[in-house]
């Protein structure tokens, strides 16, 4: 077995809303008792609707969201940290080893800094290079890896298209030599023609540099193409997790299957006779009892209203949190 680079154990991220006076305090479980392992060099997909907690989970793995309960273990063979109890100097070290790529390349880059300065900033802040020459050399090396034109380094971000900006963001994330990267909806704001280019670049980085990725997206078709392993999240919990092929050939949770059927088909003669998922994700301050998905689930039975299903292995390497994972073939049922 290979060393996991990152492992969450019973991770909970809880926020308390309301500040006491005249308002009732409410606990919000953004991430609720989640366990997952991202193996070394793995491209790990995390999918779910807005409000499912996928961004918070990604941030908790970077120690950018508070860890209320549980542990996050990072181990790259050289260093091992538990993010729940990590010391300040270790956290500083961890920042070099784990990085984030944001969704919106227009908002993520300072309009007043040149591309060179944007990419060099982490090096300077973390004190990774000693001289300006060393910094420049490192910036040029990374920029070339991200297929940026080196003559463009002196320009400002406004001169670039969305795809080029996202390559600049990726270069900035790579410059400190991280072993783990969280890419949060990194292609959602891009045109399809450019999306493919950025996805291919991320895959090349994973392959050539052996970096592990947590790739967060709401788009299962993108996840399907780039990820080795997928977890599906709903209202703070993982509802299904499996190697990509297994998950897509037979989803074992009705939510996954509903997400799949919601992808618009490219066939004009296949105009969505599949059952659409009704309603919206409920508020995490007041989650439904039992299985959190039961109010939107077509297959829900009485048992689902009281009994919370746990994530369990329903087929080899395939985990799902549904009482009826073995009983129903959700995809076939949905196609009707």
């Amino acid at each position, binding site marked *: 077995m290979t060393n996991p680079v990152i492992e969450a154990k019973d991770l909970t991220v809880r926020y308390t809303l309301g500040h006491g006076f005249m308002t009732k305090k409410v606990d919000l479980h953004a991430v609720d008792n989640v366990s997952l392992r991202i193996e070394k060099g793995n491209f790990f997909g995390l999918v779910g*609707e807005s409000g499912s907690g996928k961004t918070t989970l990604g941030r908790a793995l970077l120690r950018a969201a508070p860890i209320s309960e549980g542990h996050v273990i990072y181990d790259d063979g050289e260093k091992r940290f538990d993010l729940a109890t990590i010391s300040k100097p270790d956290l500083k070290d961890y920042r070099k080893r784990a990085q984030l790529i944001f969704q919106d390349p227009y908002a993520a880059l300072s309009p007043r800094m040149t591309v060179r300065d944007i990419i060099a900033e982490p090096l300077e802040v973390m004190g990774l290079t000693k001289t300006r020459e060393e910094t420049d050399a490192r910036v040029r090396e990374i920029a070339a890896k991200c297929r940026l034109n080196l003559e463009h380094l002196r320009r400002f971000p406004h001169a670039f298209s969305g795809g080029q900006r996202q390559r600049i963001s990726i270069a900035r994330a790579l410059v400190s030599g991280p072993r783990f990267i969280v890419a949060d909806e990194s292609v959602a704001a891009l045109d*399809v*023609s450019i999306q*493919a280019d950025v996805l291919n670049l991320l895959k090349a980085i994973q392959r050539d540099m052996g970096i592990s990725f947590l790739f967060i997206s709401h788009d*299962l078709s*993108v996840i399907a*193409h780039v990820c080795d392993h997928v977890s599906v999240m709903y209202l703070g919990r993982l509802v299904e997790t499996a190697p990509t092929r297994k998950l897509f050939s037979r989803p074992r949770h009705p939510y996954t299957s509903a997400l799949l059927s919601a992808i*618009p088909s490219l066939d*004009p003669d296949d105009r969505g006779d599949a059952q659409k998922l009704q309603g919206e994700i409920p508020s995490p301050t007041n989650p439904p009892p039992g299985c959190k998905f039961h109010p939107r689930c077509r297959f829900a039975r009485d048992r689902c209203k009281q009994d919370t299903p746990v994530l369990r292995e329903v087929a080899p390497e395939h985990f799902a949190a549904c009482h009826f994972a073995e009983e129903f073939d959700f995809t076939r049922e949905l196609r009707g």
Partner: protein
Amino acid sequence: MTAKPLISVRDLTIRFRTDEGLVTAVDNVSFDIKPGEVLGLVGESGSGKSVTAKALMRLNAGNTVYDPASRIVLNLPDGEIDVLSLKRDRDMRVVRGGSISMIFQEPMASFAPAITVGDQMVEQLQIHTSMSKAEAKALGIEMLARVGIPEPARRFDQYAFEFSGGMRQRAMIAMALSTKPRLLIADEPTTALDVTIQAQVIDLMKDLVNEFHMAILFITHDLGVIAQTADRVAVMYLGRIVETGTVRQVIRDPVHPYTLGLINALPKIDDLTAELTPVPGDIPSPLDRPPGCVFHTRCPVAIPGRCNTEIPGFVDGKDGHRAACLLAAERMQEGVGA
């Protein structure tokens, strides 16, 4: 087929006055939309699709220059309106929000934040119809119910920030449709939504087309959404329409290399092994439009010496399928497909 088009756009050329001189955003674009028809307008950011759509309602900014040869004609039961010749705001109101309504990508930015959703619905109904306030309110609540918003009477008195993203987009559709427009312009209406909510909104729009028999100009960069909604498609690149035809022609048998590129770049859920092929390079700046065919700088099959000098005209295929490419004639015959 002989039905008169609801709106007819001919030789539409739009330039913007900027500090760097005149910038061409839309170049010689022509299309028709028939009553009850859904036309999908596809293209990358910067292709000019939103500028084209806004021209139909004259919503482009003050520095816009319409070419004198451009025509936009709206055929209404009580006569034609030459949209580009309208001068007074009062005349423009017949078009804006009256015959044509528009819904946008970001519904939060389209509602006034400090006025209730209901008051905004009432306001526009009072501008465009002779309804009393009470009648407008009743219709507003009815429309909210029609687009599937639970507790419409309570929601009517709420503000846009109290709605979820999907609900805001539904409310915006309700508002746009309450004046019974003949043409709805939908500018990336589902791009900001989750796939699950997107599927619901698409279903809703299909129902409404049938119910109100309204035409839709559906702008999106997502060919999957187009395949699910449109009757006909126009593909735009750098201000020009490069291919147009029925949704089946354009998606199944694309002829223009750009259309083919867009389809190949799309991740397909039923074929996980397929490589994702990006369209190489980036869309050029409108300040720096390539000569000849605007797509030649990114085209894998460009012919040196010809594509960078000749502006390709439209080649006609079967049943209204047209493409502006020097290689289109061969490809139309072969029926080269994706």
